[in-house]
């Protein structure tokens, strides 16, 4: 059972802010600091960056001082999720922590590398180093929540958040933890933004001068990078019943596959392989495509990624009409757990506005994402995320 949600991102702090942004279909992008000179002159300029928010109500001054940016975001999101679940901030039982991160603590890594390469290795800061490892956010959540169950960090790019939630659900289902904190965190530094842009991944200004993510749109030309953290609380039904809590949604299934045709930094053409993986995921959870009421798609506005996503969905559904599809990454940005937050809100019955950035159907894709009209609360939600490099993951959520 999924009983708590904590999220921070471009739309602000808290699930309410994210729900408002999704209901409005309103992207929240900001100018990236390009002053370091990492960006090509004609490159992307915007990203779904966190606003300047104070996390004082979620972190002590000492914690904020010693933690890397992603650790701060992850710990704040974890505490929000525990509060949302009606649980104390400190766990008494074996609680698992599973966190996905695509890039780890990028600021600390960059500063540390500058120290080593420019000033010499003897200048390396121990405090930066200990918060440069990918599992720093998971470790800090465990320390903050006294969570002594398994601590895992998943690094599988865009597929990571769904893999993390599935792995955490497995830890609870197998009885290794009565409770799990699971989610995703990433920060978007100017260097990372510039590198993603140099790889051609990011949205560039179109003919209208707008730099926007356009999932499934004919004019899409890349995604908006994002940052933030989303953490959820998972509990066994028994644990929830014993304490008398309330669930937001159910985790019904998870699965993954790999597209061998994908280049290392992009998406491939292996729709058949991935459609089989999607169907396997649904069937292991006891469902068929026709049972799905809503797809929360990881389509981000990537030229090849969205094409693959459309082909996979169409192949999996075959002659059955596709259910409504929402594509929240044009609001939340890619990375930082926004997709996961949106998926939980969708399963909990939250309203979705029109798909931000979508205006013109791409006949090659044949997908028209949600137009903002009211949808009945879904019973079964399929969440999708196809990663650059070939990995793909799916999650099946159900109404509580």
């Amino acid at each position, binding site marked *: 059972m999924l009983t708590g949600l904590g999220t921070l991102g471009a739309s602000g702090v808290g699930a309410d802010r994210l729900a408002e942004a999704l209901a409005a279909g309103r992207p929240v992008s900001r100018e990236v600091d390009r002053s370091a000179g990492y960006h090509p002159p004609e490159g992307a300029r915007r990203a779904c960056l966190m606003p300047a928010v104070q996390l004082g109500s979620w972190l002590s001054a000492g914690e904020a001082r010693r933690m890397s940016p992603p650790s701060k975001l992850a710990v704040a999101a974890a505490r929000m999720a525990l509060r949302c679940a009606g649980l104390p901030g400190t766990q008494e039982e074996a609680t698992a922590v599973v966190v996905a991160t695509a890039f780890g603590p990028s600021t600390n890594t960059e500063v540390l590398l500058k120290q080593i390469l420019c000033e010499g290795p003897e200048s390396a800061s121990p405090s930066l180093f200990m918060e*440069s*490892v990918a599992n720093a956010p998971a*470790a800090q959540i465990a320390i903050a929540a006294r969570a002594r169950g398994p601590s895992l960090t998943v690094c599988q*790019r865009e597929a990571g958040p769904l893999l993390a939630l599935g792995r955490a659900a497995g830890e609870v289902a197998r009885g290794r933890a009565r409770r799990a904190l699971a989610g995703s965190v990433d920060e978007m530094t100017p260097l990372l933004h510039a590198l993603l842009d140099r790889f051609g991944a990011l949205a560039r200004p179109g003919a209208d001068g707008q730099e926007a993510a356009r999932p499934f749109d004919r004019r899409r030309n890349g995604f908006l990078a994002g940052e933030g953290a989303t953490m959820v609380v998972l509990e066994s039904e028994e644990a929830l019943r014993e304490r008398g809590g309330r669930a937001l949604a159910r985790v019904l299934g998870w699965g993954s596959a790999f597209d061998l045709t994908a280049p*290392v*930094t992009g998406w491939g053409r292996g729709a058949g392989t991935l459609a089989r993986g999607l169907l396997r995921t649904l069937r292991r959870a*006891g469902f068929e495509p026709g049972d799905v009421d809503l797809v929360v798609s990881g389509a981000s506005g990537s030229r090849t990624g969205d094409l693959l996503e459309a082909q996979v969905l169409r192949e999996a559904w075959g002659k059955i009409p596709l259910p409504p599809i929402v594509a929240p990454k044009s609001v939340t940005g890619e990375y930082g757990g926004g997709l996961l937050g949106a998926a939980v809100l969708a399963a909990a019955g939250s309203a979705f506005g029109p798909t931000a950035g979508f205006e013109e159907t791409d006949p090659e894709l044949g997908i028209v994402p949600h137009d903002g009209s009211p949808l009945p609360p879904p019973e079964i939600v399929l969440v999708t995320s196809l990663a650059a490099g070939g990995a793909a993951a799916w999650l099946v959520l159900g109404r509580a």
Partner: protein
Amino acid sequence: MQRGEGTGAVRRVAVSGVGAVCGMGWGVASLWEGLRAGRPAFAPLRRFDPSRHRTRLAAEVGEPPAHLSRAIPGWRRLSIADRFAVFAAGEAVERAGLAFPYPSPDEVGVYFGSSTGGMYESELFFADLLRGRRRLRLSALASQQVNGPGDAVARHLGVAGPVETLSSACASGALALAAALDAVRCGEVEVAIAGGADSLCQLTYAGFNSLRSVDEAPCRPFRAGRAGMSFGEGAAVLVLEPLERVLARGTEPLAELAGAGASCDAHHMTAPDPAGTGAAAAVEAALADAGLAPEAVDFVNAHGTGTPLNDAAEWRALQQVFGERSREIPLVATKALVGHLLGCSGALEAVATILCLRYGELHPASNGAEGYEADPDVPVSLVTGEPLPLPDARTAVSTSLAFGGSNAALVFSRWMDRAA
């Protein structure tokens, strides 16, 4: 375990193949030869200039066999860690007697651990960027990510099932094996290619030195005067399959992966819980998962980094699990010979553990070199000097205790004994 999964008996999981590359050389044969001889693989570092680093040694992997660059497609584009991973995976599936590309690639998964992936190549790229070099080689960054080695293995072997990289610092490799064990047990995959890979890079070399956790001399786990870890690099891969499937194929299993357990200290980012409670919980969970009592364990391949705090905490964990036997149970310290392979260490030590079980002897931590006096505060039975014959050994535990308090333990059994 999902809604649609059956509730039948849990499948027993065999290790049908292993592959490894480390400072001892390329291949399992060179690993076992070096381990058995108790010959440390440490030498002055060559990968990058160590002159301004606090320490200068590492168990660095030597040049690859010449044929690899021709035999493995895209070899030149792979990061060093990717190359290690692809080599070890190829060796492991060959030992398992499996032909790749596999006829049903959806049934194969890759579960990998890495701390830094292609960080070494990223450092070269970043140095060029900082120098203002106009033509940057983006391809050098292509497999920079932590998931690079696992993805490279999947591509090389044509895997179409789950591919997942775990990066929980020094427990990554062991946690990846635990994830693979779950996947095979529950039928998510029929074949799991699982392990880890990491290569030496300046970030970790300077970082651990900044923490003063590296010994200037080769590391001396559990010994008096120990002053820290030594670096290593490499990859190790295990092929996991349902036991009955391996037997049906006529392949002799190397061992059985009988159980896995994990925990977190929730204590400090870099220092272990001095009481060893978290580490003990991981071992107890692994034994419970295997359905075995502590008395069934014949030896332990310890995490044994050689840092004063880690080894002391591990000793206390052993005391909690094994009680009075903690002073007597033979302890293997693979890191004393191959160094700390970070995200790969749990996987490489799993291979070492399997080899010890299979050959019925435990490799020594050293061949008797100086600096191996016992530490009265950690009175473990460390195997030193000569290999310790233990032909009746049936069960072994391998521990991995990481940065951030993430702990993992694996239980291996000599399969013939369990089947008997």
